[in-house]
């Protein structure tokens, strides 16, 4: 839901208290929906895997809500963000991270799959992971000359890999393991 229109990042931070679940997209403010248990499980599983993989000095993975200031008009809160350069991580993340992860929910499907994907592509985030918990599917997009191209994916079972995090592999069953009670169409 759109809240208010056309702000710069400074005004945005002045107006809204820290820890607000809001995003600034092209100068417009959008509320973030509250997330359900399954969404948080998936995000948590991924965070744990990434955290375990990253050794000292390989950069940092951060869990939402954290503001990522892409530019004056775009402040996003991805579900997970990985930045290799520690100088980008201060009270907020400033600049373009190497890897962004979004776990979709019905309320955020269009934003994650269409709008934010386009934005990450525009800002040249090298890798974008898009996860559909209900479909138990994970997509890894790699930034190419032609924009995002599918680099790796898996449904229910199988491994996905990352290009940005060389050597990182993930069995998707482990990402979706606690979601068995969900109806599958």
């Amino acid at each position, binding site marked *: 839901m759109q809240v208010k229109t056309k702000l710069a990042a400074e005004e945005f931070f002045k107006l809204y208290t820290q820890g607000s679940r809001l995003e600034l997209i092209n100068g417009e403010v959008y509320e973030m929906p509250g997330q359900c248990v399954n969404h948080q499980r998936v995000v948590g599983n991924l965070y744990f895997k990434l955290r375990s993989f990253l050794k000292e000095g390989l950069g940092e993975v951060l869990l939402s809500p954290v503001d990522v200031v892409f530019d004056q008009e775009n402040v996003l809160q991805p579900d997970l963000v990985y930045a290799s350069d520690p100088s980008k991580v201060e009270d907020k993340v400033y600049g373009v991270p190497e890897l962004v992860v979004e776990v979709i*929910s*019905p309320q955020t*499907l269009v934003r994650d799959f269409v709008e934010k994907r386009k934005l990450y592509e525009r800002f040249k985030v090298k890798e974008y992971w898009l996860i559909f918990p*209900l*479909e*138990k599917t994970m*997509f890894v997009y790699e930034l190419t000359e032609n924009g995002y191209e599918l680099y790796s994916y898996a449904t229910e079972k199988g491994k996905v890999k990352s290009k940005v995090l060389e050597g990182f592999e993930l069995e998707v069953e482990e990402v979706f393991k606690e979601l068995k009670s969900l109806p*599958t169409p």
Partner: protein
Amino acid sequence: MQVKTKLTAEEFFRIYPEESRIELIDGEVYEMPAPSFLHQEILFRLAIKVRNFCEHKQVGIVVIAPIDVVLSRDIVLQPDIVYISDLSKVKDRIYGVPDLVVEVASPSTLKRDITDKMKIYEKYGVKEYWIVFPSEKTIVVYQLTENGYELFSSAIEKGKVRSKVLEGFEINLEEVFGGL
């Protein structure tokens, strides 16, 4: 699942019996999984709406899967719903590019619907592409622009989506997902 490699459309039609649930993408044959109840229910509800609209307006024809759409010598797809304004393209199969294609994404077809097939529809100039996400009760309508597919309309659960190709067509998502 990939079945066999590098065929042309003619060979493909010769080898596989009519009404096989398979697609030919860049000369490679892919099996289509049998759809679920939810998929079929949503497809039926949506197809009736689109078909009634087109009959009422007396424009084109609306066909549901399985129907072969022959896009080129090495691409034959079976979209869930196709709308074609040019009736000369409709023979035993559909030969040429439809104006509008709808895919109902299920877990087993999600990847193909949102990446491979979307890219093909874009490349061949399908003017409008709808992706229906049953689990998320979401419909996304893309319109073909100079920069490829751009979001034209979308809604969740109770909202309305509209079409550009079928001017005046809109559907309340409750009619699609209600009770499911």
